[in-house]
């Protein structure tokens, strides 16, 4: 029996995942040879506590947990102790660490088929754990499906996020399949190796930590800023190139209306155009007009044009998102009155008009092009649908 005396302790941040039991066993044995014996470990934070004692060639084994309990059954620890194996600590919810500090303790498992049964139970809980994480990751990975406009507006940031989450998904799946392979080896009657290398695993884990730190640091913010740099904003009066919109004056007489000039220092200022060139939406325009009459009635008018999408499917996904987004405006109650009409226009895959609390929204889609008009004022957009559809006949280029 071990003496209950005070020993110097060492806390090490160890990043060895439970999917590599043989590497962890080797690491603990190497530490014991240096006189450091594992006493406690935790994964969150990943700090393992070692006690300094006389160096010895101890053996460590990771035993598959029969259920998700963090504490092994008493019968288990007592029986193992009879054979010289001391229970040390749980390793996550999937393994228990046992140590034998004498050479005459027999190997824990003498029948691989029986050991494969213990692995099966552990794999069941590990599989459920992996599935839960993958479902959470799926929410992020499916982002281009339900937020295609974000993906188009911030392509670099989106690719970084998707790459990162895919990397995490691989890191979740790989250990599961690795443990499954070990279980199959056992089921075929092969004994498991206890001599795994841990240095390459530690390096990979450190790389993951670095990537995580990058993820948490301003790098995503910088990518977002780079994406935003692709967007050019100019006063509408300064642009002479043809723009994919119908000026407000073509909707109705604007002689009595005042169009305040664009003021770049005022974030609420109107009468400007933004243009963006991203690889998913090579020609993007957002044109904002704002006018005021003598009675100070404000007419606001915004036309958004997505041009030359690589596929009609992407255009359809964007239109679905925009329509769904507008339906949610200005709240989720759904109690406000909405009027909706759809039209069959030649050459247009989609033509839809909505009136939500006095704001008219018009969606037109032709192949890889999409036009969304949002307007609040005295005109009726339905009277100009043909003119909007003819905007698709022109060719537009992103502003330089």
């Amino acid at each position, binding site marked *: 029996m071990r003496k209950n005396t005070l020993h110097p302790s060492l806390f090490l941040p160890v990043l060895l995942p439970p999917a590599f039991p043989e590497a962890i066993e080797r690491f603990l044995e190497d530490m014991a040879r240096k006189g450091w014996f594992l006493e406690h470990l935790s994964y969150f934070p990943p700090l393992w506590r070692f006690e300094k004692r006389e160096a010895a060639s101890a053996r460590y084994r990771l035993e598959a947990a029969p259920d998700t309990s963090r504490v092994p059954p008493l019968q288990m620890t007592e029986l193992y102790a*009879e054979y010289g194996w001391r229970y040390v600590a749980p390793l996550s919810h999937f393994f228990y660490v046992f140590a034998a500090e004498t050479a005459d303790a027999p190997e*824990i498992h*003498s029948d691989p088929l029986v050991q494969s049964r213990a692995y099966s139970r552990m794999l069941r809980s590990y599989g459920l754990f992996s599935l839960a994480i993958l479902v959470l990751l799926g929410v992020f990975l499916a982002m281009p499906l339900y937020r295609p406009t974000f993906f188009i507006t911030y392509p670099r940031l989106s690719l970084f996020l998707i790459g990162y989450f895919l990397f995490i998904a691989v890191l979740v799946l790989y250990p599961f399949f690795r443990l499954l392979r070990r279980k199959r080896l056992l089921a075929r009657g092969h004994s498991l190796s206890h001599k795994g290398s841990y240095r390459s695993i530690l390096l990979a884990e450190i790389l993951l930590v670095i990537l995580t730190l990058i993820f948490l640091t301003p790098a995503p913010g910088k990518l977002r800023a780079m994406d935003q740099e692709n967007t050019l904003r100019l006063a509408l009066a300064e642009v002479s190139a043809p723009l994919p919109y119908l000026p407000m004056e073509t909707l109705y007489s604007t002689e009595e209306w005042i169009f305040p000039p664009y003021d770049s220092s005022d974030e609420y200022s109107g009468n400007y155009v933004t243009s963006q060139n991203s690889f998913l939406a090579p020609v993007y325009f957002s044109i904002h007009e704002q006018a005021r009459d003598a009675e100070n009635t404000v007419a606001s008018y915004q036309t958004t044009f997505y041009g030359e999408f690589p596929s009609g499917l992407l255009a359809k996904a964007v239109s679905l998102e925009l329509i769904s987004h507008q339906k949610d405006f200005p709240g989720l109650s759904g109690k406000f009155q909405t009027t909706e009409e759809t039209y069959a226009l030649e050459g247009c895959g989609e033509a839809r008009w909505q009136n939500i609390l006095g704001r008219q929204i018009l969606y037109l889609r032709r192949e890889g092009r999409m036009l969304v008009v949002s307007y609040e004022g005295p005109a009726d957009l339905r009277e100009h649908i043909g003119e909007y559809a003819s905007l698709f006949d022109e060719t537009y280029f992103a502003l330089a």
Partner: protein
Amino acid sequence: MAKKSMELLTETMFYVLMAFLKEERCGVDAAEYIRQKTHDRIQLGPGTLYTILAKFQEEGLLRETSVHGRKRTYRITDRGRQVYLEEVERLRRCLLDAEEENDSSQKEESL
């Protein structure tokens, strides 16, 4: 139809059932009995022994009868005895088939 590998008794499982046929024992005594019976050929490790005892209790082949400190004693159940006898019969038939095959091979060689 052949049973799946884990539904069959492994050699170790078979000997564990055998160890409890005549008397109640604790796990360590059963392992010692098997070691002696097989002339050191099968030496059970604690992990194998614990997994088999837990599985047999779960399936109703063994039953825990008493606990004295660390010592837990088990007894074979009627179902455990039946499973053991079925396995003996299966092995006996395997052996007979093998001997029959061996005899016919020897006769062919002598002809």
